[in-house]
């Protein structure tokens, strides 16, 4: 393993160690406060009776809940203990757009409270915002679409901004240096760009067509990779599980599907609808299968990325949660101390593995996209499969 590869590993190790502290506080997040409904500042008089039970029973450590919270999306960014960063809530309702801070939707103990917006009263429950009546029942008539900048959305936009800054900056550097060898970050990134170009795009799509798809493939690769890495660093500005959210693989696979569908040539469609050299009775079975295949391949792409990243995050968290499970939520210190080195070691090990998996999944997604595009644009003579 070269020095280049060691550096991010070391960083990740550090991140994992720090995450221990962050998660430890999370684990002991037992809220001793009793259930109190408090009137909420400006929206006084519109307070709503709490009807969520799970959030307010004295909490026991619940590994499943913790894991789900960590891999899921959130309207506020949990920093440590009882501190979280409120994020902007944007709601598209049938009466107009609403814009307010997510801090308005919970009290200082992180319990959901209703907020009177301009058009409706809103309640955040299980990370879903509903329009509610004054008595706390869901207002079914109100049409509310939640376009909030959630933790994932913010991370996503930040990652996009980061990609833009890095690569546009890199391009600027290239323009200045003209054809001399790359320097700094470009020196590290250029081989990767070349790798995507030569080893993924050119080899899978072919010399003739690959250049057209290169911008998409490069963006795809770096987008997935960066978000995977961001998801692996478990401290504040990072940690959002964007690629492990169904939306990312879904959108990316859909784009790939659209590209394949639109660029596919006659040869590709003929092989789907009327494969040459196959008798008609067989075609009756084969054609639906091939059509199915056309739709299933992007689904495979999606499932793969989603399942891998999701599974990685879950495994990581499970190992970490072992500490709390064995310490019986802090009651058995011996259990906690005895298991924590092992659990921590495993967590670190899995994190390193995930680092690899993050890059590998970006590679796999890009490669499979290239292969699908390759089959769609391949000519009749130079491809080997039938």
């Amino acid at each position, binding site marked *: 393993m070269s020095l280049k590869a060691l550096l991010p590993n070391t960083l990740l190790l550090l991140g994992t160690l720090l995450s221990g502290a962050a998660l430890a506080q999370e684990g002991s997040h037992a809220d001793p406060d009793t259930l109190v409904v408090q009137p909420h500042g400006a929206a006084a008089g519109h307070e709503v009776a709490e009807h969520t039970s799970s959030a307010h029973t004295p909490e026991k450590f619940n590994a499943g809940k913790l894991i789900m919270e960590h891999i899921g999306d959130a309207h506020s960014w949990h920093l440590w203990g009882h501190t979280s960063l409120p994020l902007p809530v944007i709601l598209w309702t049938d009466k107009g757009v609403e814009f307010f801070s997510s801090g308005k939707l919970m009290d200082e103990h992180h319990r959901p409270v209703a907020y009177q917006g301009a058009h409706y009263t809103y309640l955040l429950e299980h990370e879903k915002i509903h329009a509610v009546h004054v008595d706390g029942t869901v207002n079914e008539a109100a049409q509310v679409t*939640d*376009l909030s900048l*959630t933790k994932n959305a913010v991370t996503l936009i930040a990652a996009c901004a980061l990609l*833009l800054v890095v*690569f*546009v900056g890199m391009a600027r550097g290239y323009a200045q240096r003209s054809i001399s*060898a790359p320097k700094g970050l470009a020196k590290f990134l250029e081989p990767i760009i070349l790798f995507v170009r030569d080893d993924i795009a050119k080899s899978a799509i072919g010399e003739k067509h690959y250049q057209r798809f290169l911008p998409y493939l490069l*963006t795809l690769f770096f987008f997935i990779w960066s978000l995977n890495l961001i998801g692996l660093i478990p401290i504040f500005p990072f940690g959002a599980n964007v690629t492990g*959210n169904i939306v990312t693989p879904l959108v990316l696979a859909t784009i790939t599907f659209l590209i394949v569908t639109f660029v596919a040539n006659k040869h590709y469609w003929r092989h789907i609808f009327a494969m040459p050299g196959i008798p008609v009775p067989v075609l009756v079975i084969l054609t639906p299968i091939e059509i199915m295949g056309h739709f299933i391949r992007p689904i495979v792409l999606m499932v793969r990325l989603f399942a891998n990243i999701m599974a990685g995050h879950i495994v990581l968290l499970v190992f970490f949660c072992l500490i709390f499970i064995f310490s019986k939520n802090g009651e058995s210190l011996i259990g906690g101390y005895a298991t924590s080195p092992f659990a921590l070691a495993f967590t670190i090990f899995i994190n390193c593995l995930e680092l690899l998996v993050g890059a590998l999944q970006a590679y796999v997604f890009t490669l499979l996209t290239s292969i699908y595009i390759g089959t769609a644009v391949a000519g009749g003579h130079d491809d080997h499969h039938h």
Partner: protein
Amino acid sequence: MELVTPPIGLLFWMCLSFGIVVWLLAKYAWKPILGSVSQRERSIEEALNEAKKMREDMARMSAGNEELMRHAREEREVMLKEARDIRDQEIAGAKTKAKAEAEALLGRAREDIRNEKNAAITEMKNQVAELSVTVAEIILREKLGSEAAQHALVDKVMKDADLRKS
């Protein structure tokens, strides 16, 4: 099931931001980066080709040099050989000439010696003849004296007529 139900909000932001990022990166990042990378690759390739061509030229040139050197060497060989031949010829010529001269000299010397010898013999003959005449003359005159005087005279004459003196 909640995990696999796409939330509309995130879906919206995803489509928006990914669309924008693809578009912006394609326009302001990938195009210039790939452009300059391929330009660099082209220039490297050109440089490599150039170097290859140069190497070939060099090889060709050195082959030419070799030829030239060989040629020069051959020429030198020829010239040296010629020079050697000429020298040998000259030496041989000189030798024959010297030999002939020496022969001639020797011949002349022999002739001279023979001539001198002949001359000496003739001279000696002449002197002997003259002496004989003189002796005869003196003897004749002495004959007129005493016999003893005559003998003494002959002895005296004979003593005087030392052959070596003449």
